[in-house]
């Protein structure tokens, strides 16, 4: 395995909810939303790691914490073995860049592409002044836009082109790690493919490492080397992509995979893959966080003991029954095979 580029250990990111002051004034602790609640994750140099999970599971918060937008309340991030502190210096910030979901709101509407790119290059003092314009041209070319794009404002682009501009901006500082948070979910199907292909090309060409945050399992399967599944602030399973899709060990991963609508016509099964709604990250369930929705949960074990993320080699899962052989029995109507 390649060198570990970024490592998170016991990472916690909590948000104090509104009303915190009033509660404290009455001598009570404020309500805390545990967005990321004990995440251990390693990203290897040169890989694309897909991070999947449903809304509210903390995947975006984790991504934003890695980039340095959010501050962890506990735990540590290490980059090439060096600790990444809250106050990052310019060089540290430069190495990790982000592509946001919505290129409409993440680009300054009043700045042309040239202004957006050259401002960054100037601020980070990467190049002599007279080389900045050439670098801007190189960047738009890299993401497949013509030199005319430099004089345009964000509103003059279609969604897919606008996301290319956002990618060019992220690449301007020659990052080593690119955190892409749902980079294609705001785009139409036919242009999603071009942006995904572009990300993959750039990774190969520039030797990038990519953390791809997505809710679309098919997208993740197509572009990731490895996948981490997140549920309610925790990583519940990590495995190489093919392994995860063909041999998922966590019941949540299995449910998630079964829930994806398939292109093959015809209904898959009558009953839903995962029952119920995800619980609130303000008061996560005791024991295993998935136990209230789990088809194979056993009392009292699952509601009292928090399973560790464990497993052989590169495949780990946080379930008491993940590695039990034969695989845990599940309610047949809950998990029927697609084909």
């Amino acid at each position, binding site marked *: 395995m390649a060198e570990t580029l970024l490592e998170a250990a016991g990472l916690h990111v909590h948000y104090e909810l509104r009303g915190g002051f009033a509660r404290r004034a009455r001598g009570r602790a404020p309500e805390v939303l545990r967005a990321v609640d004990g995440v251990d994750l390693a990203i290897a140099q040169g890989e694309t790691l897909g991070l999947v999970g449903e809304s509210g599971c903390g995947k975006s918060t984790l991504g934003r914490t890695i980039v340095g937008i959010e501050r962890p309340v506990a735990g540590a991030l290490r980059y090439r073995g060096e600790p990444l502190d809250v106050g990052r210096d310019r060089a540290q910030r430069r190495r990790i860049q982000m592509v946001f979901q919505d290129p409409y709101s993440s680009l300054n509407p009043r700045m042309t592409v040239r202004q957006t790119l050259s401002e960054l290059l100037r601020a980070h003092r990467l190049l002599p002044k007279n080389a900045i314009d050439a670098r801007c041209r190189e960047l738009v070319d890299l993401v497949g836009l013509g030199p005319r794009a430099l004089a345009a404002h964000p509103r003059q682009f279609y969604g897919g082109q606008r996301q290319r501009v956002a990618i060019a901006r992220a690449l301007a500082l020659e990052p080593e790690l690119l955190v892409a948070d749902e980079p294609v979910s705001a785009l139409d199907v036919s242009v999603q493919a071009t942006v995904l292909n572009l990300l993959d090309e750039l990774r190969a060409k520039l030797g990038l490492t990519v953390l791809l945050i997505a809710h679309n399992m098919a997208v993740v399967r197509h572009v990731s080397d490895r996948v981490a599944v997140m549920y309610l602030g925790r990583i519940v399973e990590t495995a190489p992509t093919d392994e995860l899709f063909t041999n998922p060990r966590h019941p949540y991963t299995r449910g998630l995979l079964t829930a994806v609508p398939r292109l093959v016509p015809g209904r898959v099964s009558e009953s839903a893959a995962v029952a119920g709604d995800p619980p609130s990250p303000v008061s996560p369930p005791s024991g295993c966080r998935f136990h209230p929705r789990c088809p194979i949960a056993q009392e009292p074990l699952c509601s009292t003991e928090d399973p560790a993320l464990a497993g052989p080699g590169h495949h780990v899962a946080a379930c008491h029954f993940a590695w039990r052989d034969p695989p845990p029995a599940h309610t047949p109507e809950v998990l029927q095979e697609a*084909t």
Partner: protein
Amino acid sequence: MTEPLLRVEGLRVEFNLARGVLRAVDGASFEVQPGEALGIVGESGSGKTMALRALVGLLPPAASVTAGTVEIDGVDVTVASEVRRRELRGRTVSMIFQEPMTALNPVMRVGRQIAEMPLVRLGLSRREARDRALELMRLVGIPDPKRRSLAYPHELSGGMRQRVMIAIALSADPKLILCDEPTTALDVTIQDQILKLLGTLQRDLGVSLVFVSHDLAVIAQTCTRVAVMYAGQVVETGTVDAVFREPRHPYTLGLLRSVPDFDSVRGRLSSIPGSPPDLALPPAGCRFHPRCPFVQDDCVGAPIPLIELAGERATRCLYHERCAEDARREPVVARG
């Protein structure tokens, strides 16, 4: 063959904009049989949502239906009186929207919202209407309906809100439910729950569905027939099975090829080059020709009509045989 429940013929929806007339829907025709689920699929700006909204007179103020007929249960909606139309909207047709938070009344308890239709349209007493609401909530799988009926929309999860909306849509025993991207705002496990619920209701209650979505896989799982829309026109229709396995319009083919298919392994995704046309100035001839891999000289001149094919299919492509050949050479969906 029975009378179709919904028959749309040459529907045209136009927006009057400062810079001219924008034809959002241009001559759309489709039918829905009783108990059938029809999917309308297309990308943003294809006209799919406007076509759906035109059926029940829910167009934005700047838009209007300028041509075509819409027959619901034998009544031509485009010439019917407002009273008759309102009656149809209440009893025969109902609608489920993409965002339940904006479609539900935020200051009214959900139980009362569900009971409203039975109270007003079906003439039930308050008590009967309330019981009917609880029964509907049970039907759509809301646990503990008594307690939940007293909740306001913001107190419920996205999935529960969408179930409330489905309960409202069912409350007057409609024959046809129009669904506008009903699961797009939901997470995949909740989407799965809602799609299964709609499928069960359709089968058990015999209600027809028109299902608008940009997601081909959602259409594949819920519908038996599909209409593909591009730049305001229906470009291909047929059974989901036939259209997805052997598309006969290059746009359908391109769309199917660009979806990252869950069942196939990692590889380069193909895409459709270019962007959809400006609807105020659509290209001459076939609207897809600037992006089409099979384009010929005669695609550029006159408009292409919808060509009837065997097996109750139709396409707006002169060279659909090449398209089908391409799909046979390299299957678009994994064999089920």
